[in-house]
Structure formats: C-alpha cells, structure tokens
C-alpha cells in the first residue's frame, strides 16, 4: 500500500475525508498525516493524552474549589498575605498523606493494595519517640522510623509474594498487628518528642515555604522519576497491568512485589517523622484511616484500583484536592455533618467533572462533524 501513486480516487478520498472529519485533536491529525504519507489506515488512535487530560480535569476541580472559597469568604481571600498563608496551610496539611500516597500509588499501580500504611506510620512514629530512641538524637529517630517502615513493608511484601496472601488480607492483618504493637510499645500513652531538630521539621520555613512542603515535593519528584524514568517504574506498570506478561518477559514479579511494599513502607517511615514533628509526639492511634485517604487520593488521581495504570502527579492532585476541601470547610466553619454531606457531593462532582471534560471533548467534536448519510 505504501507505494501507491495517488490516483484520482485517492485524491478524492483525500479531499472528502477531512471534510467529514475535521481535525479531531492534534494527536489524531498527526496520525492522519502519517496515514496520508503511508497510504494505509492509521494503526492507532490518540492515547497517552488521557493521563494529562485527566490531570487537567483535576486542576479544574481544584480551581473550582478555590473559586467557591473566594465566593464564600471574599473577606479572607481579599488579603493576599492570607491567601499565600492559606495555600501553604493546605500544602502542609497535604504533606504527610501526600508522602504516604506516593508509596500507595506504586503499590496500586503494581497490582496490590496497602491497608497498613496508617498503622505503619503509627508504629514508626511510636518507635522513634520511645525514650530509648530519642536518646540517640534526631539521626537515631529518623533512622529508626525509616527502618521500621521499610521492615514492615518488607514483611508485607514477603507475605504477599512468597506467602501468596491476598494483599488486602495481608495488609489488613498488618494494620491490626502494627497498631497493636504500637500500643504495646507506647503503653497506649502519647509519647512526646523532645527533640528540637525533629520538632523543628514542622516549624522550619525556607524562603518562606515550610520544610514539610519541600519534603513532599522531593518525595513526589523522586516518585515521578522512579515511575517514569527507571526500569523499576516501568516494570511496576508491567507487573500490575499484566503480571503474566511481566513474568514471560523475564521480570521477577515476586521480588518486584516485595520491593513495592517495601517502598510503601519507607514512605510511611518518612511520613511518620513528618507527622511526629507536626504533633511533637506520637501515639498508637495516630495516622488513623490514612490508608483510606491515600487510596482515595490515588484513585481520584486516576490510578486504576486493578493496577497497571496511574500517575504520581494525579495522586498528588488527589491529596491536594482533599485537603483543599477540608480547608474550605474550615474557613467556612461548617459543622461536621454538613461538611460530610457536602464532601460526598464534592467527591462525586469532582469525578464527574473529569468525565465531562473527557466526554464533552469527544462529543463536542463528533457533534461538530457534519452528519453523513
């Protein structure tokens, strides 16, 4: 086909088809021109744009939330100082869950789920604030939090990979056990952190921006690079999207799965330090239900619960949207019950907006196409 000389018929079709289907989107026209070049029907349709479009949808939702904020509290939003401070508050609020969500995103893309993240944060937090650990100073505390997170994550991964437990059950068991252990260690008391360096993590600002936000940014950036630019990340997509294919391609699926849960555990360790710094203390009940927040953020951000697809940026946007919603309620002084009812509605609306964005684009385009009969 590629060597066909343009006959009148081809020319006619060439002239006719564009009239029937006007440029659909840049990707498609590119494909079309390629098609014209090769003389055969295109082999594909626009593709990876979806992730980007979805994230644009999420940004749209974020903008809408801010507009609602402006409309309901023009007095506050009038003060640019306040607005800047508020943005930082939102990001600080998002920082801990954000870090956890990065790990969770990897696990879900890799075809699993980690219900134990909140419990790992609590265990790591409690562990690093025991009197004994605190005696080693900030370094010892950070080291122990990271190690505990990593170790618990490893156990999760081993149970799932080599013990062949369903991820849901294995990490649920870990949730229960880790919280129990944390309660045991802390004797159910709130353990105060006396370490200035650690506590300072939550109160330090660099160039006017809180250190916590830098940490979040660093973790997100590292997560993005890891997912998109390394073999580890690409294999994560393969392991979650088509484990059989991954296995046939020579990837050690079991080992990779272990690494994914270890990564999630490590993120929890980082989050534990951040949360401990914020609360200047740790206790067994801390980070309660963070697993739900993290999973919800990842899914709102476009990660497929069944694995094989997802973006770090989407997850970050998911977390930020949730903390913006919380902030919106706070500045409007809504009662919890009203808040909850509205929140349910906003979540639904947010997802619908993303879809309308999609749907309308294609519909709009197909409507604009002159009907042929």
């Amino acid at each position, binding site marked *: 086909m590629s060597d066909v000389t343009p006959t009148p018929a081809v020319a006619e079709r060439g002239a006719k088809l564009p009239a029937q289907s006007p440029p659909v989107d840049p990707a498609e026209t590119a494909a079309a021109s390629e098609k014209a070049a090769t003389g055969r029907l295109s082999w594909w349709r626009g593709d990876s744009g979806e992730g980007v479009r979805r994230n644009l949808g999420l940004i749209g939702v974020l903008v809408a939330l801010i507009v609602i904020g402006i409309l309901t509290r023009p007095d*506050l939003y009038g003060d640019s100082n*306040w607005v800047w*401070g*508020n943005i930082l*508050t*939102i990001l*600080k*609020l998002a920082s*801990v869950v954000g870090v956890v969500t990065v790990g969770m995103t990897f696990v879900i893309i890799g075809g699993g789920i980690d219900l134990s993240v909140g419990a790992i944060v609590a265990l790591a937090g409690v562990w690093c604030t025991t009197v004994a650990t605190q005696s080693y100073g900030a370094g010892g505390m950070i080291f122990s939090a990271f190690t505990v997170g990593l170790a618990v994550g490893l156990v999760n991964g081993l149970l799932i990979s080599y013990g062949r437990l369903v991820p849901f059950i294995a990490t649920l068991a870990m949730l229960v056990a880790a*919280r129990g252990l944390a*309660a045991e260690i802390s004797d*159910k*008391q*709130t353990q*105060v952190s006396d370490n200035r360096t650690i*506590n300072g993590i*939550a*109160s330090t600002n660099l160039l006017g921006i809180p250190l916590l936000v830098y940490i979040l940014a660093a973790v997100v950036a590292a997560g993005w690079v890891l997912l998109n630019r390394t073999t580890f990340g690409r294999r994560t997509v393969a392991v979650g999207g088509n484990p059989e294919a991954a296995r046939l391609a020579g990837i050690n699926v079991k080992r990779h799965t272990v690494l994914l849960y270890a990564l999630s555990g490590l993120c929890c360790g980082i989050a534990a330090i951040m*949360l401990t710094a*914020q*609360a*200047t*203390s740790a*206790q*067994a*009940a*801390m*980070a*309660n*239900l963070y697993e739900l927040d993290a999973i919800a953020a990842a899914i709102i951000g476009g990660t497929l619960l069944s694995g094989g697809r997802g973006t770090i940026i989407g997850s970050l946007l998911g977390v930020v949207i949730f*903390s913006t919603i*919380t*902030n919106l*309620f*706070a*500045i409007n*002084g*809504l*009662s*919890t019950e009203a*808040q909850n009812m509205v929140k349910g509605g906003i979540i639904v609306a947010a997802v619908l907006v993303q879809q309308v964005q999609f749907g309308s684009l294609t519909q709009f385009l197909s409507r604009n196409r002159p009907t042929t009969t």
Partner: protein
Amino acid sequence: GCTSNEEAPTAAQTKAAATGGNSEPGKKVTIGFSAPAADHGWIAAITNNAKAQAAAYSDVELKSVEAGADAAAQRAALSTLISQKPDVIVLLPHDGKELNAFGLEAMKAGIPVVNLDRAFPDAKAYRLQIKGDNYGMGVAAATYIVEELKKKGVSNPIIGEIPGIDSLELTQERSKGFADTLASYGFKVANRRPAEFTADSGQQAATGLFQALPKMDALWNHDDDQGIGVLAAINQANRKEFLMVGGAGSKKAIEDIQADNTVLKATVTYSPSMASSAISLARLIGQGKGMSDLVELQVPKEIVLASETITKENASDYLKLGF
C-alpha cells in the same frame, strides 16, 4: 438528653447571661473554637454548649472550626482559625500532647488559649485549662462499687469494666484511677472489654464480657452513651446479679438511676458543661476581667472539675445537668 427524643438538651447547661456585673456587655470578643468531630453525645454536647453559651452574650462572636480526623488535621484547621485573628481560642484538642506545640505558638503570637479537657503538658501553652478529672472518675466509680460491695458483704468480687476507645489517653487515665482504687482495697478488674463510645459497640463489648464472666458482682462502664447498649446487652443476656456504674452523666442514665429498675445504680460525672464555662471565661479573658466571685483580678490558670457520683438519692439534683 443523650437522645434527641428530648428537647433543648443544652438549655440547662448554659448559664443565663443576666446576673452579676461580669455579664454586662463589654468589649467585643471574637472567640475561635475547635473541637473534634462530634461523633458521639458527649462531644456533641460540648460543641452545642459552647455555641449556646456564646449566643447568650451579645458581645461574643464565636468562630468555630471542626477539628477534622486527627491532630494534624486539627492543627491545619486551627491555623485557618488563627489567620482570622480571634481574640481568644478555646479548643478541645484531639490529644493534649499532640497540640501542645500549637498552644505554645498561639500564646507566643499573643492569642490566649483556653484548653478544654485534654491537658497540655506545657504550662506556657495555655492561658487557662479546664479539665474534667478522668483519673477521678475511675476513683469515684471504684469507691462507689467498693462501698456497695462491702454493704453486700462480697469478699472476693468479680468486677468487669467496659472502657471507651482504648487507645485514647483519657481512657487510660480513667482505667488507672479505677484499678488503683480497687487495688487499695485488694480488688482487681477481672476482665475489661473496650467499646467505642457508641451504643452498638457497647452492646457487643458487654456481650463478650458476659460470656467471659458468667458471674459478676460489679461493672463499670465508662460512658453513658455506650451504656445504652450495655444495658441492652444486660437485658438480652438476662443478667441482673451485679450492679453497674456509668460514666459522664447523660440524662437517660440519670433517669434510669432515679427509676431504679435496672442494674445501673450510679454514674460518675464528666460534664460537658465545661464548654459553657470555657466560653464564659474566655470572654472574660478577652475583656481582661476576672471572675466576680474571686478576689483575683484575672481568671485563674487552671480549673479541674470534680467528678461527682450520681446515685438514686441525688439524681433529681443532677437531672437538669444531664446531657
């Protein structure tokens, strides 16, 4: 009461603003208020009392933010509160130790902090602290139980306990007070099954407890809200060989005690009226006034409410304070 089947629960717990010199309208005071999400009767009463008390003053504006799911969320909520520049902040923290740092910050920024119920370890973190006495609750419950058992002449009693959410420090304090006091009489808790401050969890915890203790002499249930479920479980299991003491002092519990037709013989108070007092005192702090019954020119630094024991004899006095 703890049931919405009854009306205006907070009316009795707020103090009319018509008596004494302190109630004269003064300088306008903006009070920021934050308490954890009300998922059960006691916290709901705290929030309702605070609002009702604030509404009773013409010179008080209450800005309330709900605290969200945990300490971190409450901190974020409080920062939005601070950005609205209140004169005084009243808060019931998720956890006193976790929010201690916030108290310090706010005080440093010149905003007096009134801490409710859950103590800040650092005295510089608050201007005023109003606490219920959790340890004292346990002491009061144990004391009542010991006395009653003595009267009955039980020498080696089997005592059960149904605490609330076990991971909370306040639960720990209550249980400690209970256990310490029992120990001083040589008694101990045979089994404790924690519930979650809700009636259904109380029912399930109690059912489990009854299974473990086929015979029992006394039972302390930390919270009257979950006590509804505990009483239901008692009914369903057909158990009446023991006496039960409640906690917090809900209206329904007080009524039950007064009627004396259940095993519930007493309850030890932990009154949400502290929120009303906190608002009143926060207003005075904002206006720079003292408490008119005290000689001091300023509001004192710490107030600990006594945990009182409500029995059939004094129930009628407390009925109006039941939430």
